[in-house]
């Protein structure tokens, strides 16, 4: 009897061991075992947390190894990429890309079309407004990581002050609230302007930051930068009206007089210091503005949609950080797999919680469902509304964009400083732009 029990016991143990051995995945080969992927990625700030958290996970799942060959700011990466591509020296498989820069890189013919590697089902969760930025022609040359667009940040203490509300209604005949049109924005800036303690508003008046602000207001007023033959048309009456608006803000002292030397960090510092009643800024600044360590307006500022122009539309000049795979990659399948993984739901959710603008519908649903703080919830709702309902535009996807911007913004500055009449400044910029485009072969 004892022996029988022992035999049954041994049999059970043997079966158990067999099951265990079959179940152990040690023998199973991972899909990219032994493959090494080289990546040139944006670094600094919160960008690197994604790599620290998720690259080891992908390596574990696939057996591949990721080597980050460059971790730089986008500014530095841009120089590196252009020089590497021109010299044929890009030896990496995956690169950080950006919807505003992608056209320049694509001109070298180095970016892999991802469409054959990705099903429509895999793309379905991406917001259409962001996904369409990732195409050049019908080629999908990048997958979005996160998006940023601008809306209004305003000092709610000023906007909700009962005395100010009364006085404003008396003077302008409508309620003091975040502006819905550019004309209202001017009125409110004029009303709340109390320099040097508080300026009505501000804008980035230098470099591409100024070109972009002019561009989105021009479009919302019904204008365009170029016609269908790439001839500059921003010196139209609508262009003149748009630039006059910036000039009136500047000349009437409704913005800090230093705006022509401001880029992103300068306007952010001013708003965080409580010196600006309202202004347009990227969603990515929200966590910084809301942190009492960095901002005097933390927990008190409001967030609202960008004003609309004469054409009755809100236009957001926006851009996506993306990832691309190089055609020269010897491990295209693995490289695409890595890009798909790093832009999948879990990493996106991780980055959204760090403050980056999500590009997947499911992440927005998650954020709206789980966020309890009413201010933060308003931020997410406003952001999502803009992404789904407003015009989201990239700069024209041409390699000449940076050179064009370098032509346009000094002329915009000259106009608002009063060095040139508005029309002449725009005409001068249009003439130089036409020359640029002619030399680049657009009119042959």
């Amino acid at each position, binding site marked *: 009897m004892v022996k029988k029990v022992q035999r049954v016991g041994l049999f059970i143990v043997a079966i158990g061991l067999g099951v265990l051995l079959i179940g152990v995945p040690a023998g199973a080969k991972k899909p990219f075992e032994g493959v090494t992927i080289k990546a040139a990625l944006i670094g600094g700030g919160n960008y690197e947390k994604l790599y620290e958290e998720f690259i080891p996970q992908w390596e574990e799942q696939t057996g591949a190894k990721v080597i980050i060959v460059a971790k730089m700011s986008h500014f530095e990466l841009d120089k590196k990429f252009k020089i590497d591509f021109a010299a044929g020296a890009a030896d990496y498989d995956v690169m950080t890309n950006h919807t505003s820069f992608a056209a320049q890189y694509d001109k070298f013919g180095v970016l892999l079309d991802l469409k054959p590697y990705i099903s429509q089902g895999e793309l379905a969760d991406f917001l259409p407004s962001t996904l369409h930025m990732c195409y050049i022609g019908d080629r999908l040359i990048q997958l979005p990581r996160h998006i940023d667009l601008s809306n209004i940040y305003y000092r709610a203490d000023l906007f909700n002050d009962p005395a100010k509300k009364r006085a404003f209604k008396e003077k302008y005949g409508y309620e003091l609230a975040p502006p819905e049109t550019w004309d209202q924005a001017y009125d409110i800036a004029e009303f709340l302007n109390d320099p040097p303690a508080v300026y009505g508003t501000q804008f980035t008046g230098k470099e591409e930051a100024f070109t972009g602000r002019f561009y989105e207001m021009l479009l919302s007023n019904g204008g365009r930068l170029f016609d269908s033959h790439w001839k500059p048309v921003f010196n139209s009456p609508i262009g003149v009206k748009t630039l006059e608006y910036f000039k009136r803000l500047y000349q009437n002292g409704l913005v800090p007089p230093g705006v022509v030397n401001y880029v992103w960090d300068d306007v952010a*510092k001013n708003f965080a210091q409580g010196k600006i009643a309202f202004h347009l800024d990227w969603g990515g600044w929200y966590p910084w503005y809301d942190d009492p360590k960095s901002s005097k307006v933390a927990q008190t500022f409001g967030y609202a949609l960008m004003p609309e122009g004469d054409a009755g539309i809100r236009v957001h000049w926006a851009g996506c950080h993306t990832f691309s795979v190089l055609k020269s990659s010897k491990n295209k399948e693995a490289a695409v797999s890595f890009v798909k993984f790093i832009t999948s739901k879990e990493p996106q959710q991780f980055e959204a919680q760090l403050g980056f603008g999500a590009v997947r519908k499911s992440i927005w649903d998650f954020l709206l469902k789980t966020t309890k703080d009413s201010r933060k919830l308003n931020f997410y709702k406003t952001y999502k509304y803009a992404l789904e309902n407003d015009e989201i535009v990239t700069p024209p996807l041409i390699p000449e964009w940076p050179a064009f911007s370098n032509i346009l913004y*000094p002329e915009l500055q000259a106009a608002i400083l009063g060095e040139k009449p508005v029309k002449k400044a725009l005409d001068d910029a249009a003439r130089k732009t036409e020359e640029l485009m002619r*030399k680049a072969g657009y009119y042959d």
Partner: protein
Amino acid sequence: MIREKYLPALLITPSLSIILFVVAFPLAFSLYVSFTGYSLLTPGSMVFTGGENYVTLIHDPVFWQSLKNTVIFLTIAINTELFLGLGIALLLAREIKGGRILRTLFMIPMMFAPILVGFQFKWFFNDQVGMVNNLLYTLHLIEKPILWLIRGDLAMLSILIAEIWRGTSFMIIILTAGLMALPKDPFEAAEVDGASGFQKFRHITFPLLSPFIYIAMAIRSLDIATAFDLVQIMTGGGPAHRTELIWTYVYRLGIIDTKFGLGCAMSYVTVIISVVFAYYLFKQLLKTRG
């Protein structure tokens, strides 16, 4: 005999080859590129276009403005640095208590990268949150912000202050070393003859120090192009090209706009100006050496 004749040439061949490869070849190549329409973004654009780039520059008002700004910037910066550097060096060269610590302290500005100096002075001169305007507000000296980085004259002054702060240390070091190396005999003789302090400076110190002054000026005039970082951060050459220097404009054309041909042409104009200036200084230096 033959071995002795060719041995020196043989010995310098490796270093000469390296210099040719890393200096002469790129210089010659960039000279060629300056005569082409090469754009980094347009493959096949390295086609000979004659002097078109140079003609474009001649007709470009921004180029002339940047050239004018550069000459003003260079002249004021170098001379002020020399004036301040010489004055401070004369004080530091004396045997005073704490002299060594002071000499070390005056070297501190040299330890900062120009880009950091740019960020620091950009904040100093910011119209809203800058230290200078806030100080002037606190002292009730102004009621409206001064536009340090916007007004053409003040923007140039602001970048000059930053550059002079950064560059004076170098003058101090070279001139202090020069002063300490001067022979004592002429000073003792002048003392016996009853020469005044100014006479000693005018007739002994300055002539004997001249080689050091010319060397320091030559090095600084070539090195001052590193002010690019500083200007790029503080004003970016703006607003509306008001502080555009030839180096920021080369960067704009060559790197941002990727017009390498035009950028090389403009670089060559810069090189020619620098060489002429350096040649003049070295000629003066040789004169002082008799």
